[in-house]
């Protein structure tokens, strides 16, 4: 760690590790972290980015009334965050879960505190945009097939939920 980095300890007790982390050294944790860092490679990042971009462009192209949250390129490789307007995020998340797809939502209904995602609020999203937002992230076990499967399911779920929504119809 660079000298002068302002850090605060999260475990109090003994004076081990320069009084920054109490307790005996966490060898399995350290070894696990080292291995995890090794697994982050340019190739793997490129693979994740490809899946992320395919998901974002397919959703924007095939599903009407959606907004990409965050910058199209300047974002971490594995993360796609999209708002599906006129529907609520927990409902989409629950439907996807039944198809074996695990995602998360910024919707207040999904959090224990009933507070929506402060991140989407902070980047200028209103409450409705937070409410219908979905965070989809990829990992090393995902493939391009998962992208196609997810977009397909999203398309039908969002259509189904919009059909029962009182919003967006006249």
């Amino acid at each position: 760690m660079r000298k002068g980095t302002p850090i605060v300890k999260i475990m109090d007790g003994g004076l081990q590790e320069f009084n920054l982390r109490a307790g005996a050294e966490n060898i399995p944790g350290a070894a696990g972290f080292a291995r995890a860092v090794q697994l982050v490679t340019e190739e793997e990042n490129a693979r994740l980015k490809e899946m992320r971009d395919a998901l974002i462009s397919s959703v924007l192209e095939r599903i009407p009334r959606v907004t990409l949250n965050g910058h199209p390129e300047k974002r971490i490789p594995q993360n796609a965050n999209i708002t599906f307007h006129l529907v609520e995020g927990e409902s989409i998340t629950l439907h996807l879960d039944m198809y074996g797809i695990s995602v998360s939502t910024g919707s207040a209904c999904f959090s224990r505190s009933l507070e929506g995602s402060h991140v989407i609020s902070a980047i200028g999203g209103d409450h409705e945009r937070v409410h219908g937002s979905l965070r989809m992230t990829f990992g090393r076990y995902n493939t391009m097939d998962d992208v196609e499967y997810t977009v397909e399911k999203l398309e039908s779920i969002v259509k189904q939920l919009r059909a029962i929504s009182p919003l967006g119809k006249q």
Partner: protein
Amino acid sequence: MAFPYNDKVLEHFRNPHNVGRIENPDGQAVEGSPACGDMVSVNIKVDPESKTITDIKFESYGCASNIATGSIITDLAKGKTIEEAKKITWKDASEALGGLPAIKVHCSVLAVEGLRGAIRNYEEKHGLAVEKKPTTVDTVRRRLKKVMNPLMGLDMVSTNLVEKIEVADGVVGIVINMPEDHQFSASIKEEIKEKVETLWDVKKVNIEFTG
């Protein structure tokens, strides 16, 4: 995070009953708003002789508990007289669903209010509404008890968000104990206006924020 729903709730969520709208409904209501989160609309058809709800439909912009409650409450109300249907509570709905998580009360109570609102709308249109009483601080407080504090999942009165209520010459003044630039202040303000401005003798609602 695991979803806190039982199989019955999930079944109603997946295949909700009585979804949609009725053309030329005898009574209708919309509860909630996109700003506050969830929203439910309820349409009813009432037999003029027996005062029985012959048809009922709902639409939902909300989470699973909101959709499932809309489904079960419309099942419960169908075929009942409006007097019987008025008495259906959130507890009845929750019991018929085999239980709902406590944190989901605010999402699911909207369907119950939607049903009551549609009945009230029917009564008002057909001259059945009870006599008009002048609005008092108590009336306003009762209405505010239907506005959720989104931070707590409970109403804004019991969570002490309401600092002061004044009623004078058709003007209602309400002081809310939260900063004006808070994430939820705009949606709360909008909801209060919706709830209080509809009182028959209220001309204006002034909302102030402190804190």
